[in-house]
């Protein structure tokens, strides 16, 4: 019925689809929440109206992104039980408590203070309001901590034993701070800031192109460009450290990313720039490569040895064609971001940052690239983990619910595709609508706690 796909394949498609949609929104809200906390703090410090206006404008966009993150996140949580019940049964003793900690320490914090952050103007004083914004921002970051801990544990599991076919946790410190956790946290956290800063850059670039050069636009543009500069450069370092970690703990993934078939025992490995890896033939076609560079980048030594894909049995190899290209897309876009950041530095120096039309176009074009890089990075790490759901412990196919049939998964997949297209399509449309409307100046905020409820503040 579903193009001859099995229930397992459909469940994998469903997971990939829902998680790809989901990740966009938390990544946006992590960065935007911190951005909002910073501008509200600056407003408290300086009492300049421009910061308050920026806050109110960006908090609307934040609210839409946050709402979509919540509803798509609930789908993720329940999917573990519906489609992946064997995974839940076998590994739930580790991932369940981590998810519980996320809900307790982050989810509630965000949801509890979001009401005050969005609706609390005039009901609480400015400092209390800032506290609420800060709590929301803190919540998004704590949330990332637990989710990445859980994901990293699935990539580099430790701190447990297996009893009666069930994973039994022993050392929670080892489980949370597993070998790849800190690298993944830094890499993903930086990515979240990069993604949302690029959104602000793109939106402000669009405003500049339309001739809106008010302080609200230029201030947001400038702040976000500094943030892109910092995060895109930091990403080179964090990405590299995660690469070293992957080489050590997930060598098959690394070999697939580099389309590296034979272990280079006594000669330096080349860095392949372009190729079409063929999993069946076990070789690459149309290869363009830089000699020596592979060993240098991956191992930080001229003669570093990197295991080839052929060292692993064929059924244990991730798909090289996908991860080779998704990885290169991510890295390529990151370099483009760095180029943009340094161009912005130069234009700042020349005092033409807000007036160069071509740069505003460049900024607009770069707006969505953060999301593309984020998704391709996600594909690299998740497809690269295959065929394991818990690396070297539990194969993806053994995590699937045995009683769920293809029709159920296929139909629910179709439902999700339709619903997500309608709902998130509308959400993205409203975000664009808000961006297009641009920031406006709001009524002056009376900085006392005693504000009449009925007075329109927004």
């Amino acid at each position, binding site marked *: 019925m579903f193009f001859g796909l099995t229930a397992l394949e459909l469940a994998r498609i469903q997971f990939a689809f829902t998680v790809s949609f989901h990740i966009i929104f938390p990544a946006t809200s992590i960065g935007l929440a911190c951005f909002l906390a910073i501008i509200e703090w600056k407003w408290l410090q300086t009492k300049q109206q421009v910061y308050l206006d920026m806050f109110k404008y960006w908090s609307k966009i934040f609210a839409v992104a946050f709402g979509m993150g919540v509803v798509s996140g609930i789908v993720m949580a329940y999917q573990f039980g*519906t489609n992946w019940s064997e995974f839940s049964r076998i590994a739930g003793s580790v991932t369940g408590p981590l998810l519980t900690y996320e809900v307790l320490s982050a989810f509630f914090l965000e949801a*509890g203070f979001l009401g005050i952050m969005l609706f609390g103007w005039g009901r609480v004083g400015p400092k209390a309001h800032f506290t609420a914004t800060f709590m929301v921002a803190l919540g998004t970051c704590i949330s990332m901590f637990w989710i990445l801990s859980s994901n990293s544990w699935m990539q580099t599991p430790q701190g447990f034993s297996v009893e009666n076919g069930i994973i039994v946790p022993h050392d929670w410190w080892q489980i949370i701070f597993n070998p790849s956790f800190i690298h993944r946290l830094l890499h993903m956290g930086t990515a979240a800031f990069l993604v949302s800063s690029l959104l602000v850059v793109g939106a402000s670039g669009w405003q500049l192109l339309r001739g809106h050069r008010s302080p609200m636009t230029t201030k947001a543009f400038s702040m976000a460009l500094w943030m892109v500069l910092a995060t895109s450069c930091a990403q080179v370092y964090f990405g590299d450290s995660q690469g070293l970690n992957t080489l050590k703990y997930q060598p098959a993934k690394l070999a697939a990313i580099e389309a590296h078939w034979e272990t280079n025992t006594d000669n330096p490995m080349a860095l392949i720039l372009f190729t079409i890896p063929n999993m069946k033939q076990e070789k690459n076609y149309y290869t363009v490569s830089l000699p020596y560079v592979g060993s240098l980048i991956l191992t930080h030594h001229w003669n570093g040895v990197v295991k080839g894909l052929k060292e692993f049995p064929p059924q244990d190899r991730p798909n090289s064609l996908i991860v080779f290209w998704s990885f290169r897309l991510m890295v390529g876009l990151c370099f483009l971001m760095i180029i943009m950041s340094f161009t912005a530095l130069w234009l700042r120096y020349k005092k033409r940052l807000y007036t160069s039309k071509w740069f505003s176009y460049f900024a607009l074009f770069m707006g969505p690239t953060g999301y593309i890089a984020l998704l391709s990075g996600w594909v690299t790490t998740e497809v690269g983990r295959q065929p394991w759901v818990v690396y070297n412990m539990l194969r993806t196919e053994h995590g699937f619910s045995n009683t769920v049939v293809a029709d159920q998964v296929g139909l629910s997949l179709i439902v999700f595709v339709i619903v997500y297209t309608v709902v998130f399509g509308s959400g993205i449309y409203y975000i664009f609508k808000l961006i297009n409307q641009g920031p406006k100046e709001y009524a002056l905020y009376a900085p006392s706690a005693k504000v009449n409820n009925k007075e329109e503040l927004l």
Partner: protein
Amino acid sequence: MIDLAIIWASIIALGVLIYIVLDGFDLGIGILFPFIKNHKHRDVMMNSVAPVWDGNETWMVLGGAGLFAAFPLVYATVLSALYIPIILMLVSLIFRGVAFEFRFKAHRSKYLWDWAFIWGSTLASFFQGVILGAYIQGIHVVNNAYAGGPLDWLTPFSLFTGVGVVMMYAALGCAWLILKTKEDLQQSMYHLMPKLLIGLLVIFVGVSLYTPFIHPEIASRWFTMPNLLYLSPVPVLVLLFSWLILRACRTQCDKQPFLYILCLVLITYAGFLISLWPNIIPPSVTLWQAAAPHSSQLFALIGVGILLPIIIAYTILTYWVFKNKVGVDDEGYH
């Protein structure tokens, strides 16, 4: 040794109860939407829950995460058994949730998001009731896995409990609006409440008569001595609180209806727990059989012990900040 399985079952039961009460009244707002045609009144209804609905919904996630942590077997078997109603509930919750954000941003398409809010709220409530009914009916578990078909949940009983939950949430929402609004809107809610209550009582009677028929175990628990003596106050209390609500509506007291309907929910919920004990997957899997390894339960419990009081504190704080009645002239942030 302290029995962690019982502690965890209590925490999850508490989380689910808080969820039913809190998300119950805001889902109820959506169910009551069709009865109110005035657009300004609809705005008021939505604004009365807009600052809190997100926090309310989080209690469901806590219930799910708690199950996942403390009883992964339940999570694995029950969720795959109730696959279809769960997916439909999630989809409904998606529409309900985004309607809050989109409705105030749309102009021409505002009525579409009204629809999304109405159907999202109503169907989410309905499928929660279906899930409840299917769960009470029992889930066929063999060798730690679900052993039934994809449509086992679909019975007259589960559809009936589905309607029951819609009624219950509508009554909660109605009482909430009596508490939070004034003038015309509040008056229409005073008049609506008796009708909802009658509907609710019909459902209660139906479920109470039907359940013992399908489940002899539940029947024996309720109808043998001395349990019968202990449990006989239950129907009496239901009638008492229904009467109190009706009286409060007649005399136009705005706080009592919500308080009394909470008591009704509590009684119903207690009845449900009594029927279930000590199973966590009826009819055959007990709390202890489904428990996660001790280290998992203990680790997650530390988090609950520290964080749950803090959560309850700031949840109360949020409600305190938004304690005033909502009027037509009030502006949301939109």
